[in-house]
C-alpha cells in the first residue's frame, strides 16, 4: 500500500511540472497587459513602462518561468500584483469557504446519490426506478448554475426568509448561519453529480446483483439485507469511487460559477477575479493548487481501490503486475 502511494507520488511530479509549464504559457499567451492594469486607466506610457519593469515582465518567458519555478520550489508562490499580499495567504483565505462547500456537496452527493441508486436497482423497471432514472437524468442535464439561479428564485422571491441565498458567514463567527448559508449552493452543486452517482450506482449494482456470488450468498442463507447492502454494494462501489474522486477534484477546485451566483468568497471566485486583472501570480497559484488537489485525490482514489478490492492491494504489495 505505502509502495503504491510512493510510486504514485513520484509519478505526480512530472505531471505537475507539465501542468505548470502549460498553464504558465497559456496565461501569458492570453491578451491583456498586467502593467497597463497595474498602472491604472489613463496612465502615461512612462508609468506603464515603470510598472512593467517592476513586475519584471520584460524578461523572457523562460526566465520568468524559472524565476517563478525557483520560488515555488521554496514554497513561495509570489505576491499578488494588485493587493501585494502573498498568493499563499490569498488562497488560504479563500480555501475554507470552498472546502466547506465541497464537503457539504459531497455529503449530499454520496448520502443521497448512492442510496437512490441502490434502491432504484432493487426496484428495477418498476415505477420507483423509472422515477429515479428520469429525475436523475434531469439533474445531470441541467447545469449547476441554472439550478443555483432557480434556487435563488425560489428562496429569494417565492418563499423568502426560509434560507439565505447570498453570501457566506465564516464558521468561527456563527456555525449555524454558516451551515444555513451553504445549504443552497451545496444543493446546486450536488444535484447534477447526485444524478450521475445515482445512475452509476444503479447500473453497477444491477451488474453485481447478477453475479454468482450473490446467489451463492443467498443460498448460504445470508440475510437479504446483508446480501444487498454489504455483499453487493461494496463491489458495486468500485466505479462510483472513481467518479466521486473526479467530482471531489472539481468541487475542491472551486466552482467558479456557483460561487459567483451565490456570492461565496471561494477559490473559484479568486481565480476569476485574478484573471480579470491579469494578476498572474494569483491565477497560476490557484491553478497549481487545483492541479495538486486533483493529483492527491487521484492517489486517494487508487488507495481506496485497494481497500475495496483486495486483488489490487495484494498485487501492488507483491510488486507484481
Amino acid at each position, binding site marked *: 500500500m505505502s509502495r503504491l502511494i510512493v510510486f504514485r507520488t513520484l509519478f505526480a511530479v512530472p505531471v505537475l511540472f507539465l501542468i505548470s509549464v502549460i498553464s504558465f504559457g497559456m496565461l501569458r499567451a492570453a491578451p491583456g497587459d498586467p502593467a497597463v492594469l497595474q498602472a491604472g486607466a489613463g496612465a502615461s506610457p512612462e508609468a506603464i513602462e515603470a510598472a512593467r519593469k517592476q513586475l519584471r515582465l520584460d524578461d523572457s518567458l523562460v526566465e520568468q518561468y524559472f524565476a517563478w519555478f525557483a520560488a515555488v520550489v521554496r514554497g513561495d508562490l509570489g505576491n499578488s500584483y494588485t493587493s501585494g499580499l502573498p498568493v499563499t495567504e490569498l488562497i488560504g483565505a479563500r480555501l475554507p469557504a470552498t472546502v466547506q462547500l465541497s464537503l457539504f456537496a459531497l455529503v449530499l452527493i454520496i448520502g443521497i446519490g448512492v442510496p437512490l441508486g441502490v434502491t432504484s436497482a432493487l426496484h428495477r423497471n418498476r415505477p420507483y426506478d423509472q422515477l429515479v432514472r428520469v429525475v436523475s437524468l434531469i439533474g445531470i442535464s441541467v447545469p449547476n448554475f441554472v439550478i443555483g439561479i432557480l434556487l435563488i428564485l425560489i428562496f429569494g422571491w417565492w418563499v423568502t426568509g426560509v434560507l439565505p441565498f447570498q453570501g457566506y458567514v465564516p464558521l468561527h463567527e456563527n456555525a449555524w448561519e454558516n451551515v444555513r448559508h451553504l445549504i443552497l449552493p451545496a444543493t446546486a452543486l450536488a444535484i447534477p453529480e447526485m444524478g450521475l452517482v445515482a445512475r452509476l450506482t444503479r447500473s453497477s449494482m444491477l451488474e453485481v446483483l447478477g453475479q454468482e*456470488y450473490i*446467489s451463492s450468498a443467498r443460498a448460504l*442463507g445470508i440475510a437479504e439485507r446483508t446480501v444487498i447492502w454489504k455483499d453487493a454494494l461494496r463491489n458495486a462501489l468500485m466505479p462510483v469511487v472513481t467518479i466521486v474522486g473526479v467530482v471531489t477534484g472539481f468541487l475542491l477546485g472551486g466552482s467558479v460559477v456557483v460561487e459567483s451566483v451565490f456570492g461565496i468568497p471561494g477559490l473559484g471566485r479568486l481565480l476569476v477575479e485574478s484573471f480579470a486583472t491579469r494578476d498572474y501570480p494569483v491565477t497560476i497559484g490557484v491553478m497549481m493548487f487545483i492541479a495538486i488537489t486533483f493529483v492527491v485525490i487521484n492517489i486517494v482514489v487508487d488507495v481506496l481501490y485497494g481497500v475495496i*478490492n483486495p486483488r489490487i492491494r495484494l498485487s501492488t504489495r507483491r510488486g507484481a503486475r
Partner: protein
Amino acid sequence: MNGLTTSTHPHRPPALRVENLHTVYRNGAQETSVVRGVSFDVHSGEIVGLVGESGSGKSTVLKSLLDLIGENGQARADVLEVAGQDVRSLPRAEYRRMRGVELAFISQDPANAFNPAWTIGSQFRRVLKRHFPGMSRRELDAWAVELLGAVGIDGRGKLDSYPFQFSQGQLQRIMIALACASERLQVLLADEPTTSLDVTIEAQVLQLIRRLRDERGLAVVLVTHNLAVVAEMCDRVLVMYAGRIVEDAPVRDLFRNPQHPYTRQLLKSIPAFPRDGRRLHTMTGAVPDLSIDVAGCAFAPRCEERISGLCDTIRPVLPPRTERATARAACHVVSGAVPAASGGEGDG
C-alpha cells in the same frame, strides 16, 4: 457403497419431495415456461442425477427449490417438502432461512461463488455464526480450519487469503465445506459442480460429494450433462427434456436399458473409449422453444421412433412410481400405445 441404496424407502419420508413444480419466466408479454410439472423425491443417502441438454430446465429446478429465481420468474409447486417439512406453508423469509441450514447449494462456477472483496475466513465466519451463535471469533476460525481440513485443504494461515488466491478446484472444495457447514444439513443441491474443473480435480470433488453422502446421509441432487459423472455418482437418474422429466431410472437400468428415445439418443452421443471406429451419433434438431407449449411430446420432432398421429397430438405422461424401483418413461413408444383417433393418455 454406491448402488446399494435403493430408491424407495417406504418407512421414511424423503429428504426432498417435489410435486408438480412449474417455473415461468416473464419478459414483457412473453412467458417462457422453463419447468413444466416436475415431480421427484430424494431420500437420505441417495444421489439423484438430473441430466439433459442445456436449456432443458435442470438448473432452473434447483434455483426454484432454493427460491433463487429472479424477480421476473415465478415458481410454484403442489408439494415442496424439505427435511419432512412442508415449506410451502412457511412464510417466505422463514423458508429462506432454511437455506444453508437444511438445504445447501453448490454452483458450477467456484471462481465466482465467493465475494471477491472478503477473505475466505470472514466468509466462513459469517456462515458459521448462523450455525453456532455462541462461538467466539477464535472458535469460529478453528472450526473453519477443521471444516477445510475435512475437504482436504490445510486452512491454517489461509483464512486471511482472498478467493482469487486459490485454484478453481480448491475453491470448489472450500465451497462444499462452507455449504455443508450446517450440522442439520439434509439436502445438497449441486449444479454441475465439476464443469469448470479439470478431470483429476473433478474426481476429487466428486469423491468428496460421495463421501459427504456416505458419512452424513445427505440427499444429493446432482445436475449435470456429463453422463460419465452420472454413471460414476448417481443411484438414480432423472432425464429432463423441455422442462419435463421424460425418464426416471436406476442408474444401471438407464445405461443398460434406456427407455425413452431421447435417453437412447443421448447415450449414443457419448464417444466410445477406446475408439470403436464408428461415427459418433449426432442428435438432429435443437431443444424446442419454451415459450410455446406444443400439444404432443416435446421430443417428437427430433424423435426417430415417433408415431405420427399420436406423439404429435397427445402428450405422453410419466407413469406413477411403483413400489419396485424400475425405470419409467414418458413415451408412447415405450408404453406400447398404438395410434388411434381417440388415443388415451398413454400411461398404462
